[in-house]
């Protein structure tokens, strides 16, 4: 009991009186000053004008982990103990394969190199003639509003009769995952033939509803994978995405909103004025 009492006293002292600790690499200046985590981010890359910070955890983001060591620092965002987004500041970064995009900041350049599997599921319908075309349009009307795994289905009818059915199918498969072929017999019987790059999602003589169920079984997860690069004076902040499923649908916009750039240069100047060194102002 005595040991327990001592533990309780220590815990109370620690818990009740604590006014410092690692804190968060938050974009907001805390009332007691900048958090230790942010200061160490700045110390990690003493040349960088900005360092990543977090405004808030977005829906579906379980937790955030901070890391800092000489040369790199940042935050990791986790869901179910898996990191799906990392924002890291380094002195420089390689943007060779990335595409320049508008950053929205005058002193920051932005580049992206990402692989996206969109939310929408596109099905290309290839009719072999006029009657099949009417049948196809009729099917599209019937299926309007039906979703696969809560994802909208977009129907594209390719009725370019100057091209052969096989060339239209080939073209569609090169751009999309699923193709429905509607020939005269299908038009009469109200069925479709399904083609796909995934051999598990092929078949013929299928009602449109059955064809959707076939696709539902093999439809790939939405994904957002790759990197964003923000380069600026003395450093670079890299966002690394590795998301699948529902998280991938919103991760890009959430990252835009939730992760910010803390002005490291300003803090360095303030520190220098106070006689401390956290990098060259």
């Amino acid at each position: 009991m005595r040991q327990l009492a001592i533990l309780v006293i220590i815990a109370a002292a620690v818990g009740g009186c604590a006014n410092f600790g690692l804190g968060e690499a938050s974009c907001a200046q805390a009332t007691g000053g900048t958090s230790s985590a942010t200061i160490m981010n700045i110390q990690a890359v003493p040349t960088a004008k900005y360092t990543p910070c977090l405004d808030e955890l977005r829906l579906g983001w379980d937790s955030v982990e901070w890391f800092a060591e000489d040369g790199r620092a940042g935050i990791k965002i986790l869901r179910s103990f898996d990191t799906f987004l990392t924002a890291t500041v380094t002195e420089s970064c390689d943007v060779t394969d990335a595409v320049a995009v508008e950053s929205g900041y005058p002193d920051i350049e932005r580049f992206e190199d990402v692989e996206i599997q969109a939310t929408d599921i596109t099905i290309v319908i290839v009719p072999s003639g006029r009657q099949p075309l009417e049948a196809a349009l009729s099917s599209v009307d019937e299926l309007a509003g039906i979703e696969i795994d809560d994802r909208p289905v977009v129907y594209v009818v390719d009725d370019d009769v100057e091209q052969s059915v096989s060339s239209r199918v080939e073209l569609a498969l090169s751009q999309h995952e699923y193709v429905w072929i509607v020939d005269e017999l299908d038009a009469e019987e109200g069925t479709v033939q399904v083609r796909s790059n995934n051999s598990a999602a092929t078949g013929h003589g299928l009602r449109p509803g059955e064809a959707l169920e076939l696709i539902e079984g093999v439809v790939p997860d939405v994904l957002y994978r790759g990197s964003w690069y923000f380069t600026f004076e003395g450093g670079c902040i890299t966002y690394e995405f590795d998301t699948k499923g529902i998280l991938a649908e919103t991760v890009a916009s959430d990252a835009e909103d939730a992760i910010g750039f803390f002005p490291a240069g300003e803090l360095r100047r303030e520190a220098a004025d106070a006689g401390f060194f956290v990098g060259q102002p």
Partner: protein
Amino acid sequence: MTPIEPGLVELGERREVRIAGVRMAGRRRRPSGEKAPLQRELRTSGRFWLLGGLAMVALWVSLFAFPGTADWWTARDMSILEWFVDLRNDTLTSIADAVAMLGSSTFVRVLRIGTLVALVSVRRFRHFFAVLLAILLVQLAVDALQIFIGRPRPFVPIIGGWNGPAHPSDPVARVSVTLAAMAYTLVPKGNRRLLAFGVAGAVVASLVLARIYLGVDHPSDALVSAIFAFAVFTVLLRWFAPEGAFPVTWKPGVTAHLDVTGDRGTAIRRAVSEQLGLEVLEIEPFGQEGSGGSTPLRFKVAGDPDQFVFAKLYSQVHVRSDRWYKIGRTILYGSLEDEVHFASVRRLVEYEDYIQRLMRDAGVPSAAPLGIVEITPDREYLMVSEFLERSQELTKAEIDDAIIDQALALVRCMWDVGLAHRDIKPANVMLSDGRVVLIDVAFGTVRPSPWRQAVDLANMMLILALRTDAQRVYDRALLQFAPEDIAEAFAATRSVTMPSQSRSSLALLKKQRGIDVVQEFRRLAPDTEPISIQRWSPRRIRLAVGAATLGVFAIMLVIQEIRGGGLL
């Protein structure tokens, strides 16, 4: 001061007692205020490190309780750091960079794995687990404190590598606990260990200075880590594997037998002299290969002629071992019998003394107890008893029917008075002057379960059959036990119910002569269903679930630490 009456000085000498032919005279009571023969093992160095560790804890608590403390420390740290920054030049920086490599995970990993491999190779598993536990504890504490305190790196130009918050210093803590572990567990006590501490101290001091010079640690980060890590290991080792019980030697297979030389030897001589009135001339280990629950000793005591007495030294190490042993048995088999552990060494020796006297009162021949000697209050006691001279293990003696009858009569007697010995094995059944004597009654119990009594009978019959044959022993047993009793005894017999010494003797017999004694007895006795030894109880379930949870937790921690490069 009132002078002591001259006549009373010799009072103890005049009060003479003679037990089992041993003359005891000169006993004295330790007056109030006089120190016990042996002080607790946490000596000056132990107290220093314990206080050092506590000071660090107090410092951490003060950081949270009194925020101004942190500012004060930072001011002191900054003045030292700035002094080091002023000293910087290329040569010193190169040296500091090289020295800072001592804190690298590769260097520490090599030392740790080397230490653990060395400990396993000499089968010093206590030290092995102490090292592992200390490393884990220090790492967990450092990781947690780094987050709780969250101290940034020094506000000076940093010219070395770093990772995470500054306080406490992770590399310094890792190196300190590793070097402390090496000095304590790999180097035997004495000048060589002092030298090892000196080297360890020099290495840690160099690392501390290098890290301060490079501006990666504040002086307080590094110093606190060094002291804390060293203190944790020192205190943990003294609790978990004290030097007196687990001396560092390079002989393999050292068991939990206390070292009876040095201070402890002197204390034993003094204590036995004062408390029993016996002058100990020689102390020697006796029968340690058959004993793990105490440190058995033989004393040569002054007399006319000199005599031998038997003694068993008990310490907290033995009480803890007994506790873990009983918890393990409860998890594996359930409460086969009274598995309640002893709360203290004092209770353990009181119990053994009581059982020994109870057995003798009940007519079970055993060595005459001469008394209990206090070495360190509540921590170490010595049980002294008659030494059975001219005695030998029953399995090494010539056995006739009369001896078999005597041995079986002991079990019958225990059954009749409601006792069980619980450790009937060759080393505990002696033949002394034609008389069968049971020794080592520490595991004895009053009103045991019927199962336990049956096991006693089976174990005694097995010992007797080792020197004769099953048929003969069975025939003699029928003179004192019903066939159903014998059938029950062997229905209860399992590998786990036989002491290891009996098991190995039976295995040898089977290998050499092809005789399976247990099966022979089962064949002779009436058919009966085997008796299950598994007993289920809420306590067993709780312990099993608790142990499994702790095991999983420990494995996860170890895996996490290994993955993170923190542990090994």
